[in-house]
């Protein structure tokens, strides 16, 4: 087991609202886990607890059998890569330099990266097909490219598991799919992968396990196709979402129904109808 999380609870000190409540979770090597939940349910909080950025109020987290609280950041970083939501740093380091920083947990203090570290970084850039960005300033590339650079940085840590916090947020549709493909690819390369997302369709696309955080901070886990039901989606998102098999795509998709009559201008409604109708007609029950 990589992670064994038992009865985890987390409450932010300033507020009394508990974010995580009696959360238990196990993560086996080579598995894929998507964490779903509404906004504010504590998906990021759970990941932050899992890398030691936040200390849980109660419960325990074991990483490879060792209590996380007793581990240093360095020990954690040697087995866990964390892809946080991208932000622009203060200085425009080159993408290569930025990715090389992922070697930090494997470089002695006061040391600096050697030739092997540079090569590892370059290899990661090749895997993500962004070698052409190597000498560009990290502050001057697009959001999708930044996300890839952050993923590359997590890869060069050579971790056992990579945690992705909302990796598809703020990306356009093309980049969202590219990132999901990369994550899938990472799993095939032997990394365990944990991803938070607010789009249930992404969990369906990725497959594997899913963990659903409810509004009150409880968690239920299981294989994607067993856990995700229309009933559950209604509960967590407070709105109707449909699970529809799409034969052309050989998968079940999670789609919203057509928009309500209220709130939309008539032109918008007509547009929505035109878009939705063909799909509805060819719908197979």
């Amino acid at each position, binding site marked *: 087991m990589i992670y064994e999380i038992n009865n985890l609870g987390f409450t932010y000190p300033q507020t009394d609202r508990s974010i995580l409540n009696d959360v238990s979770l196990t993560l086996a090597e080579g598995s894929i886990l998507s964490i779903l939940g509404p906004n504010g349910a504590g998906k990021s909080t759970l990941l932050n607890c899992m*890398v*030691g*950025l936040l200390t849980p109020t109660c419960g325990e987290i074991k990483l490879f059998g060792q209590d996380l609280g007793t581990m*240093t*950041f*360095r*020990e*954690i*970083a*040697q087995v*866990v*890569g*964390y892809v*946080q939501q991208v*932000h*622009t*740093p*203060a*200085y*425009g*380091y*080159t993408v290569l*330099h*930025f990715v090389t*920083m*992922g070697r*930090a*947990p494997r*470089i002695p*203090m*006061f*040391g*600096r*990266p050697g030739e092997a570290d540079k090569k590892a970084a370059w290899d990661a850039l090749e895997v993500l097909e962004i070698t052409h960005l190597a*000498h*560009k*300033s990290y*502050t001057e590339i697009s959001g999708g490219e930044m996300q890839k650079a952050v993923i590359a*940085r997590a890869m060069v*840590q050579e971790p056992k598991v990579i945690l992705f916090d909302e990796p598809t947020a703020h990306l356009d549709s093309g980049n969202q799919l590219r990132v999901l493909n990369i994550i899938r690819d990472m799993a095939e390369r032997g990394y365990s992968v944990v991803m938070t997302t607010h789009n249930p369709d992404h969990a369906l696309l990725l497959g594997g396990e899913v963990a659903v955080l409810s509004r009150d901070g409880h968690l239920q886990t299981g294989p994607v196709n067993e856990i995700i039901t229309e009933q559950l989606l209604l509960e967590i998102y407070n709105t109707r979402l449909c699970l529809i098999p799409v034969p052309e795509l050989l998968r079940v998709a999670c789609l919203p129904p057509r928009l309500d009559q209220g709130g939309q201008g008539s032109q918008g409604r007509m547009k929505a109808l035109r878009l939705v109708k063909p799909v509805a007609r060819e719908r197979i029950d």
Partner: protein
Amino acid sequence: MPSKWLVLSINIFLLAALAICVVWSLCVGKYPITPLESLQILYANIFGLAAPTDQMAENVVMGLRLPRIMAAVVIGAALSMSGATYQGIFKNPLVSPDFLGVSSGACIGAAIAILMALSGTGIQIFAFCGGLLAVTITVAIPRLLKSDSNIMLVLSGIIVGGLMASLLGLLKYIADPETQLASIVYWQMGSLSYVNLPTLGSVLPAIIISTIVILSMSWWIDVISLGERDAQTLGVNVRWTRNVAILCSTLLTASAVCVAGTIGWLGLVIPHFARMLVGPENTRLLPAAALVGGIFLLVVDTAARTVGSSELPLSILTGIIGAPFFAWLLYRRRMNLH
């Protein structure tokens, strides 16, 4: 981003420029010595040859110009590295020893030591403690307000700087005007006119040690400059690393204050200029900033002692050059401040 060869050539160029500036500075001054004589005196002294005939010329070159040149280079380098390090660890391009209140804190420490009739090492220790106290308060205020913004840290620096200025005013008020006040004012103004080798020698060990530590952790300053959370998930003990870096750069600033008083703008502007030359990576930036800072302060100080009938305080010159340059930088880079 310049290539490694370009960076190497830039560093060699800077080193050559520094050497030229040192020789130039050694040859100019109000005392009439030909450049050739100056170099002969230097040569004779280095290799222990017979002393030249003009004793006063030798005193001027070896006793006045050389210590001053060395002090200008060392202090320019120390303040620039200190500024670059603060900018890195606070991931904030707007901070510097003077903007964080470190310089004025060190100045207060030195003033208190003067009031307590301490000298030499005592003044250095107090200056260091004063600087450290100031930077601690400056960093604590945004924490208390739970704000991580660059502007908040700068505001906090202004608050601490203002407080320190008032405290310094108070100290000047209670100082003995005949003996202590002049010394305190001298610290405050920033000048190298009376620098001598024993003073410089006494701070040199602290400067060398801090420089070595900062240079050897320069890559880690890059990691920390990504932000605290990023650095932690990359396995960095942020608190420890940052504290070591703050200690070293504060020691650099305090040492500079002990020799030359407070010299403004240098620690803010030089790292930016060096970044334009060699890029933002601290492994390249710190050595380049040290060289540029050394050259800059040497040129400014040589101008201060040769132009005009009486010497100008250094802060006046660095401000006249530094402030407009910084404004131009802000315009040119449209720096992201948040």
